[in-house]
């Protein structure tokens, strides 16, 4: 079986708003969602900013998945999934017609329930390992994130959390799309979730990867990332089923590419990324000339941006399409990052705009001439095919291709 796969629902819980509409409006306006950290005590940290979801009330969206039994990443994922299914117009009657065993979720994450780990570490310091709270321990497995989605939505098929660090959502989308394409499933909810937390903030600071104030991808004075959090979900289903139920189709999932540098845990490799772009194009059946927009990994570290642009130039030559980074606004949502990228690509295709790079003052000359990073705010444009980048610790590259249904 080889079915066409489309995206019919989008859900987001982010520092720029709850719901895909709120997020899209903020992205188009170039709003910045990062700010002072409130989720943990920042005393002693030189840098104290991140992209937090401040107005997230799990009880407003979730009925089965509660804060008493689930960690923050699971709550963010389940809430995004509820919003995505609602956005897809899959009401309860539709769900009843769906074979629950043929519906599931694949969610990406970098650090899973990292806030839970922070709390357990505090218990360890306070009372020793024998004092660990069993209810918290039960929340630790990363698998809980996808199980939370299935539990809340009443899905009974696959529940898989892909822990492929910051490329994880693209991994999740590729796998979920294959399950639908091959007939293993009729509906997959795919995306990712991560939480802002103390140990990751410390680690990224110590790596020298953090910036102090704002994230400035592609800027000559960019310093690094801001850690961020959020949950994002996309509903994938067969094109024929979407048509039959009269669903709104945001975009077709055209294909994806995956590769591993196999060289270094934290330094990206331009040639390997270029190979991943080419394999994504092959898989999607497109050529570089077909791509209208690249949603960059664009972390805003000096190394990532120069490596990523070099890889893009290797593939696209003199015709580099507009390329922007939504991390300038959301910060780096880690395992959810490429899921947010995919969501924004779907809206760019459906609504007709190029997402911007915020905080961009002067494009780094080291990135080469004529680079259109869509500075400031969104531009209206006909985006037929968008390419969504996600790169990760471990030299992992994952690229998804989304396109207008032709």
């Amino acid at each position, binding site marked *: 079986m080889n079915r066409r796969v489309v995206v019919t629902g989008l859900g987001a819980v982010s520092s720029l708003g709850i719901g895909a509409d709120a997020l899209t409006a903020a992205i188009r306006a170039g709003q910045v969602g990062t700010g002072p950290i409130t989720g943990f005590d920042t005393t002693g940290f030189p840098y104290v900013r991140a992209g937090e979801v401040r107005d997230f009330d799990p009880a407003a969206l979730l009925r089965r998945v509660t804060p008493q039994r689930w960690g923050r990443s699971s709550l963010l994922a389940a809430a995004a999934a509820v919003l995505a299914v609602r956005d897809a117009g899959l009401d309860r009657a539709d769900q009843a017609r769906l074979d629950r065993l043929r519906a599931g979720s694949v969610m990406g994450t970098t650090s899973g329930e990292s806030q839970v780990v922070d709390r357990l*570490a505090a218990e360890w310091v306070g009372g020793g390992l024998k004092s660990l709270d069993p209810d918290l321990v039960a929340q630790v497995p990363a698998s809980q994130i996808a199980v939370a989605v299935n539990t809340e939505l009443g*899905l009974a098929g696959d529940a898989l959390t892909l*822990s492929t660090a910051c490329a994880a959502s693209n991994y999740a989308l590729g796998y979920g799309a294959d399950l639908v394409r091959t007939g293993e499933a009729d509906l997959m909810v795919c995306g990712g979730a991560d939480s802002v937390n103390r140990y990751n903030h410390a680690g990224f600071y110590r*790596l020298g990867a953090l910036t102090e104030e704002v994230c400035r991808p592609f800027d000559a004075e960019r310093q690094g990332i801001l850690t961020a959090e959020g949950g994002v979900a996309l509903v994938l289903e067969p094109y024929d089923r979407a048509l039959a139920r009269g669903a709104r189709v945001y975009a077709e999932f055209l294909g994806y590419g995956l590769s591993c540098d196999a060289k270094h845990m934290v330094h990206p490799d331009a040639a390997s990324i270029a190979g991943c772009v080419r394999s994504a194009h092959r898989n999607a059946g497109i050529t570089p000339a077909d791509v209208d927009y690249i949603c960059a990994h664009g972390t805003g570290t000096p190394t990532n941006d120069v490596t990523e642009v070099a890889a893009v130039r290797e593939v696209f030559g003199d015709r580099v399409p507009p390329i922007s980074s939504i991390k300038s606004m959301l910060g780096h949502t880690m395992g959810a990052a490429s899921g947010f990228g995919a969501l924004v690509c779907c809206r760019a295709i459906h609504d007709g705009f190029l997402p911007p790079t915020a905080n961009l003052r002067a494009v780094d000359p080291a990135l080469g001439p004529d680079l259109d990073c869509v500075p400031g705010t969104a531009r209206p444009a006909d985006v037929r095919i968008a390419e969504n980048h996600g790169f990760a610790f471990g030299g992992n590259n994952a690229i998804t291709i989304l396109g207008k249904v032709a």
Partner: protein
Amino acid sequence: MTTTAVRPLAVTAEGVVTPAGIGLGTLVDALAGRAAACADPQQLPGQEVLPEPVRLVEDLRLAEHVGRKGTRYLDRTTALGLVSSRLALRGDPSGDPAGDPAGDLAGTGVVVGTSAGSLRSIGEFARDTLVRDEPYLVDAATFPNTVMNCCAGQIAIWNGLRGVNATVAGGQLSSFHAVRYGRNAINAGQVGRVLLGGVEELCPQTAWGWRATRLLDPQLPIGEGCALFLVEDAQAAAAAGRPAVAELLACEVESPGPVDARPPMAHRLARTVTRALERSGVRPGEVSLVAPGATGLAGLDAAEQRAIRRTVGADTAQLRVKDVVGECFSANGALQLAAVLAHWRTHAPSGAVALLTALGPDGSAGCLVVRSTTGSAS
């Protein structure tokens, strides 16, 4: 319900590290009662007290397998994975069937089941932000160890494996999800062959965590281990003349949420078994060996046995690998598969079929059907 036949995966090599020792041969001996698994908590590096009983890998000497250079900051989860990967790709020094080191390493992917990465590495790093003079005075060199895909990434780096590199977290079903993910990656043309399995390290954080939750029978040991299998499409392996030790047939999962919801756990598991046998083209009566995974898990053990009775009958022989290796969470499924291969080294007619099952406290149920090909493919 999907009932179409699956494309079998050929297992052409394996790398197994367990409390029985290094290599599959040691597990053969331990399962046969000829050797004992290591149960001495003093053999685990570190000063912390562990809640007994435990099972652990004795003499895990990473440098003997990969050389000393560059191993200083690697944690135990990664070490277990790296040693297993070397055994699978380069053969076992004890004389196990060797993988083909000249094979297409760059075209090989990695799919590793995990619970949440190395909980020792993550826990100690988080603790450092609380106990050091300043919260940011953590050790940057160990930060990559806190990321869940560290083991899979290092396996790729040390072996030059440039294909798909996935880390899959599916709780007790993690290793089964590795099989499903790996099969899809091969069928979808993303990669030619995959090193897939699961890894779990024993550490005080995990061990005390298990005991706190009381999910595991207190008499049963908490263990560790890693099993990785080099797999490719069975037809492709046969066409290329590469011998297989076994074929992985259907692997089915269900995750409808909590245990206390309907349907009951036994029903969930039985349903996956029925579907998996059908998709494997195997009749229930052909299953000659069952390797259960929920052994010792509160409430789930009995449900698993009910499902087994209902689907393949009460008289089918069972192989309990946890008696040797302990509770290994996300590596359980991979270690069940290792045990089946170990069992077949001494007992198997070619064509024998085994059923591996798993149930999790998160309400998930799944199974894997495996066929012995030893003697028939070479």
